[in-house]
């Protein structure tokens, strides 16, 4: 297929571009890190990085910001996969947040995310003095991301200023930052959700089992199915966990992540379901529901 007339399929073009970006960042920054969220996008990004430096190892560590509220299956997957692949994984948790007893139930989704995710990430970046952080975000995810650069510039406070972003031409990325400043690099910028799934399928990339439908204990809250992943889940009066065949379109903190009822147990079935879906991916994320433009707000504050 590749040979005929020297043409590449769109996935091969995207792959080559992403590898180019990953190598550029590794070559031009002093202390890059790859943010690893354990989701499918991270899985694809990680595979692309392995391709970029093959037969060498990754010249940077992975960083997982652990809120301590992730699904158990995510953490198991993370530890096993990183061990198997010989990856240098760093895990960071905001200990002050833990000490203050921040949790999704009492603190609310916004505060929990702010402290355990956004602030925690900043702490980790400062602690290790990373000057470039790869993220697996895509431009098709959300309207406000459509203008995001591949190299997204952050000031000393890790803030994103929409007015202070650099024009980005061709594949010539500007890596100049002063001490303390940094960039977020998004190698998957031009991928769509379908591209990611197709790539996972084609390349046989292992992903967390939660993406596949299975019978799981859930409760229905404000029209969203929340999985009872451990004993910390607080049930409201009258709430009884039911066993339902569900799966997740995105993964995060389990009390804040909605499941969908599904029978899809293979990748083609997941893709089929997605193609037939009538609502966008982000609906499953509770944090986005407050208001339009909330992603933009989060980005300014330093969350992705």
């Amino acid at each position, binding site marked *: 297929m590749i040979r005929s007339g020297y043409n590449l399929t769109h996935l091969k073009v995207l792959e*080559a571009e992403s590898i*180019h970006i990953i190598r550029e960042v590794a*070559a031009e920054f002093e202390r890059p890190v790859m943010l690893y969220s354990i989701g499918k996008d991270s899985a694809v990004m990680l595979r692309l990085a392995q391709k970029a430096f093959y*037969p*060498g190892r990754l010249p940077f560590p992975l960083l997982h910001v652990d809120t301590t509220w992730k699904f158990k299956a995510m953490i198991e997957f993370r530890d096993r996969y990183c061990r198997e692949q010989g990856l240098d994984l760093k895990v960071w948790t905001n200990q002050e947040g833990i000490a203050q007893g921040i949790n999704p139930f009492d603190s609310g989704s916004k505060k929990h995310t702010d402290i355990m995710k956004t602030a925690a990430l900043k702490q980790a970046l400062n602690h290790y003095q990373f000057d470039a952080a790869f993220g697996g975000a895509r431009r098709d995810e959300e309207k406000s991301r459509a203008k995001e650069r591949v190299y997204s510039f952050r000031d000393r406070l890790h803030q994103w200023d929409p007015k202070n972003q650099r024009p980005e031409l*061709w*594949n010539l990325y500007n890596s100049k*930052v002063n001490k303390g400043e940094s960039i977020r690099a998004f190698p998957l910028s031009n991928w769509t959700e379908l591209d990611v799934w197709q790539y996972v399928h084609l390349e046989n990339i292992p992903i967390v089992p939660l993406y596949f439908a299975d019978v799981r204990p859930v409760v229905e809250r404000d029209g969203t199915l929340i999985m009872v992943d451990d004993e910390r889940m607080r049930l409201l009066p009258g709430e009884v966990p039911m066993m339902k065949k569900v799966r997740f379109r995105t993964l995060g903190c389990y009390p804040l992540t909605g499941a969908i009822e599904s029978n899809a147990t293979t990748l083609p*079935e997941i893709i089929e379901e997605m*193609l037939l879906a009538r609502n966008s991916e982000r609906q499953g994320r509770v944090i986005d529901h407050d208001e339009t433009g909330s992603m933009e707000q989060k980005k300014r504050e330093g969350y992705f």
Partner: protein
Amino acid sequence: MQQVDFSQEDIHTYLARHQRKELLRFLTCGSVDDGKSTLIGRLLHDTKMIYEDQLAAVKRDSEKVGTTGAGEIDLALLTDGLKAEREQGITIDVAYRYFSTDRRKFIIADTPGHEQYTRNMATGASTCQLAIILIDARHGVMTQTRRHSFIVSLLGIRHVVVAINKMDLVDYSREVFERIKEEYTGFVAKLELHDVTFIPMSALKGDNVASKSNTMPWYSGPPLLDHLETVHIAGDRNLTDFRFPVQYVLRPNLNFRGFAGTIASGVLRKGDEVMVLPSGKRSTVKSIVTYDGELEEAFAPQAVTLTLADEVDVSRGDMLVFPDDQPHVSSEIEAMVVWMAEQPFVPGRPYTLKSTTRQVTAEVASFRYGVDVNTLEHRPIARLALNEVGHVQLSLTQPLAFDPYRINAATGAFILIDRLTNNTVGAGMILEGGAGKSQGDVWATEPAARLKLRESQITPAEREQRYGQLPVTVLLVGLTGSGKSQIAYALERRLWDAGRAVTVLYGQNMRQGLNRDLGFTADDRSENLRRSAEVAKLMNDAGIITIAAFVAPHAAVREKAKQLIGPERVLEVFCTAPIEVLRSRDKSGAYEMADAGNIAQMPGVTAAFEEPKSPDLVLQTDQISVEDSVNRILEVMKSKGYFPNSSSAS
């Protein structure tokens, strides 16, 4: 995400088909309100890329802020970006959108049509293969249309679709479509745009966007989407010249030393001999390594890792090429630059230049000319301000390997980075002959000795007899605003009406054709006059009277021009007036720009004008009319015997 119907085929067939899609990136450009957002919304909607929740949100918003009539969905709202912008009702910056059909995946670079247009358009265009230029059918080709087309051509986009939109508002009229098409074709001839397709449409109603409309039976071409799916793009890449900018050196263990990078152009096979630039060292390719196995052959734009047979020194920023097909290597480059920062581009300041994977320090050697993005006119400049475009000569601290952008965009493009702010401030496209053009005195350069001059069989006497005139060059010189061109064209008219064979060579016109590569430095002005003098000579040799209107500020250069044409065939006419009059007459704004420091070496302001010492005629154009001036020139021509056997020329 596209929604599909699985009653026709199963998911496996679907996936197999979709794995083979090609990628097409295109740019949409239009002025505010031409319907760009509506068109993009329409494409996304009609290819089923919109989810119900998104559509519901747009329906809600349509009632609040939409501009369409009651009940209609404002599809433009689907593509609006950040919240603040949405509230202001404008879009800034470049936004990327994604959709796909059965045949291709598309990436749209959506660039807004207002103030920051040049910068944003250049940014969006840099990665695109095709541009859609929107024209509102009611307004036709506008200044912005020219500007958009110029930038599209500047950035080397090879395929253009002119979308003549809002056809519903002109009764789907074929005449309107044809008129706009003709008008556009006329002006685009000056630009390097080759594949131009015109499509009449209504983005609002969906006519000829995703499907063919029966409102315009006279249009036989494809709807927009069909064209986007089938336009031939495979030939756009340069697969001829192998270029491999080294990105990263991989040394996982003592036995492996690989050079990782993206093939910028060309095709490479295992065993090929390669040369490292700039060092010039040679070796052969031992293996082409990828995670998915070794390759026998690789091509642009694949990302691979190469190992070489020999221990040659190679580091990031070097380029591997074939010894028999090398790029230019030079520390002087000529380029078109688009300026993107508030602070202007000025000489005497070092910038970081990044081209492929190489960074060098660059400084302006000279500004050759600026291009007015609206009129495409060239004018002298001393700096480049935000959103301006100019031809610049740059000096680099280290040599750079490059190709002209037109031949190889991947190795002909660069960005400029400000060293204080770290901002990306300029985008450059290296020009042909970028290796530094000959700076010597062309006037004095002798043609190669082996070249022989062949004489025409027609003698000057025969020509004189046929035309009833002796050929002469009337050289009108003088500062901007001195009335040269007005007099030149009035004189041409009078001579023509009297039956003479006559033509005008006007400096500004010459600069748009034969001399379009020249700027306004003293050297370039001299070259402008030299070439024009060569043309005047050819005209005179052909028996034709030539009226040449040039500023020609330097006496020595004028003298050379006279010698070239033949002193006996030149009438020198000096047009002059007090400087206040010149300034008040000038409509081009050149004097004010020169005062403000925006034009370098403007004769009469920041550069000298050496007045002719013994012209054949001096015209004080503030004291006599154009008609009188013409009369006086005719008298001199007559008295010098250029009109044998005729009593009167007028």
